[in-house]
């Protein structure tokens, strides 16, 4: 059964990029949300295996979405991989505090991202 990936990102080029990366692989299916509120709604309905979560989002930012997901017993098992253009240690620390399972900095190449996703889902 293919793994469900919820992509949360407000840049349409990056959404298309992420969807293309994972839809080209046989064992993944992607859905996407463009803001924090929509992300939580889709996460509740679709129960994704992993959320690729941008930090800088409209409505609710990535940290808040992550906190909501991890504090909700029905979704807390969902893996969260944070993606951000902010590359300072403090940003990484904030992501950890919010409960993110891993963190990848923009820009990235597809293999690095796939590796991180597989590592997270493999350990599930």
């Amino acid at each position, binding site marked *: 059964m293919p793994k469900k990936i919820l992509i949360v990102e407000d840049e349409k080029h990056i959404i298309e*990029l992420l969807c293309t990366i994972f839809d080209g692989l046989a064992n993944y299916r992607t859905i996407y949300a463009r*803001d924090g509120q929509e992300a939580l709604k889709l996460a509740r309905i679709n129960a994704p295996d992993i959320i690729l979560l941008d930090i800088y989002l409209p409505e609710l*930012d990535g940290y808040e979405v992550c906190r909501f997901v991890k504090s909700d017993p029905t979704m807390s098992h969902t893996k969260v991989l944070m993606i951000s*253009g902010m590359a*300072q240690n403090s940003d990484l620390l904030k992501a950890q505090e919010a409960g993110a399972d891993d963190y990848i900095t923009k820009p*990235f*190449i597809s293999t690095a991202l796939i590796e991180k996703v597989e590592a997270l889902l493999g350990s599930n």
Partner: protein
Amino acid sequence: MSQIKSMFVRLFTYGERLRMVAFTILGLCVLTISITFFALSAGTPHMGIELSMNNYDWIVKIIDPTGLASERGIKENDKPIEINGEPAQLFLEKYEKEGFVFGRLIRELTVIDDHGYLKSVALKDNSPSSKFLARLGASFVVCLIFWITGFYAFFKRRKNDAALLSYLFALSFGLILSANMASEIAIPAAPWLEVAASLVGPWLLLHFFLVLPEERAWLRNNPLIYLIYLPSAITLVLFPLVGYANDQPMLWFRTFRMFEYGTGFVAAAGVVVFNYFRATSPRTQQQMKIVLISCIAAFIPFLFLGLLPAATLAGPIIPSEYSILLIVFIPIGLVYAVVTEKLMDIDVIIRRGVVYGLIMAVMSAILGAGIFTVLAFRNSIGATQEILIALALGGITTALFGPTKNSIESLIDKIFYKDRYDYRKITQSLSTSLNSVKDLNSVSRLIVGTAVNTLNLAGGCLFVKAQSGSYEAGAAQGSFVDASRQRKLLNLISQRSRLIEFPNTASKEISDLAFLIPIIAAEKEVGILCLSQKATRQNFSSNDIFLIQGIVSVAAIALQGAMLIHDVSVRDTFVSVASHELRTPLTSIVGYADLLLRRDPPDATRKRWLKNILDNSHRLNAIVDDLLNVSRIQSGRVNIKLERANLSNLFEDVLPLSRESTNKHEFVVNIEPDLTDVNIDRDKFTQVVGNLLSNAVKYSPNGGRITLSAHNEPTEHRIIVSVADEGIGIGLEDKGSLFTTFHRIQRPETRGIRGSGLGLYIAKEWTEAMGGKIWFESELNKGSIFFVAIPTQDSKRVN
């Protein structure tokens, strides 16, 4: 269009002139009548008596101390025997219904007093009493002050309704006083004019106080305001119909009239007090304070030196014929409140009055004691000794003047202000407070606040030196809060010479500036502290100078620390924002390039991916340009190439780009067709408007309207370009720092809106470099309008 506009301007100007001419003619007519009344009164004697019926018996009821009857010894309760050559009973028969007769109907009178003595008086062949002439003179002086102040206000503030009302009030007051005199000497029209003027006067005053405050501008043109004249209109209609008989106002009408104009005065006084306590603008409060003080100055001596002694002692301290002179404080107060734009600090004047009053009292006491001593030994000393004693006394008084003045000033300071301070403790406490704050604004506020509050200064301002070398206001208090004064201070700072050292005094431009102190840390100027004179206008003491030196030395260290923290924070923000903004387009470029290498997509997909790479490369390029521009601006390397251009053509370049960036917003273009050519840098101007339009798109909801407008302002020699949106608006917390680097509005609704926070900073710098000016108006959650003014004349800057 412009013809219609100029027609309106002409009509308006014509209306203004018409109003001026009409009211000037009215004023001159009233003035002529009043002066005629005074002149006639000065040459004609008056009886000054009122007969009244008491238990079917006529007696002298009221006697005017300035009339001929009083001068001839006629007193209250004397009984009339003969009036105007006929028996009193016969003469008074026709007035029995009314029960009283005015003195002016009586030309000859003979009375008998309780002791059986007969007293006679006749107007014929007599001149007015000296008391009457004194009263007339005093009344004329009061009227003169009313007229001068009224005409001055009217001509000084031609378009001001409050000035017109104070002018009309002055005319009506003059008419009341002159017609009152004239009615006593039997000029037939005088009582009518007196009644009309005294009925309308208080309501004019009420009208004045209703429209004077600037916050009541809405009331000025509201026709409902004229309803306040209803009581006087009713009373005036009643007067000829039922209130006047036998050449005199009827008794009941006099009571009614008194009630009507009493109500008017009470209403006016109520509005003054209401205005004072509910005023929102300091200007209104100050105006009301001036009026209240002038009213108090008029009535308190009138009460304590006139009315009260007259009721409790044998007579008034100020003779009644002169006490009217005190009324002159009222027109002076009214007109000062209307005319003045630079309000006087009435508190300071009162306090200085107290200081110098006390000094005078102490010095007079010393001199008085000396003179008394000399007088006591007058017989035993010779002329030489007298001269020597006088010289010694003069010397002692002169020597004592300085210490007396200082100790009284200190005493007043203690009473009105804070206790004397210990400058060491203040400096120490400032140092401790500065240690607990780190941000530049709080540090600046503490420094200015300590100096201004401890020294009772009228104002203070601290300018902090920015990295670019320019000065920015860090904090301001009191009279230096005003932006125009800060601009003048900045001018002064830019012109200052190294020869002017601390402490320096006064510039001609800012008369109340006392000190302009450079704050130097590690041999580098970090700021400038500007301090005004003391609110009391006293000189600075040596203690004050020590305190200023202490504050400046503590401020230097604190400012340097705060600026370092500020620089680090700016650098952190720069790194963080730049990193984020650069990485986002880079992700698309790297990601799609990576996919193209790894996969073999169909042609259409390949093209789409390549286009994504291209779009994001452009975006990356724009961000790098912005960052380079900021770097150029901050290092003073701005290169502006001014050329003559028509803005309409430039809008055609920039608008399509903005329209392409969104299909969710409505664009409205409102460009005046015949825009004057201007000298601008085309690229930079396009970038300014582009940045404003881009922000309007970013911060407006879907469906929001964005309006680009431009119009000539020929009188100001400039073109105004504006970009209006229906977006989230700008809150108070963002207004001050909107044009600074990396400033982003941090509100829930701005999350996810991309931007470097450099656009407005660059727009401001480019606009100013082209001699223009940029500003905005905004209402939270309703939208914002950004204005750019570009000069139309060569080498001129927009003010």
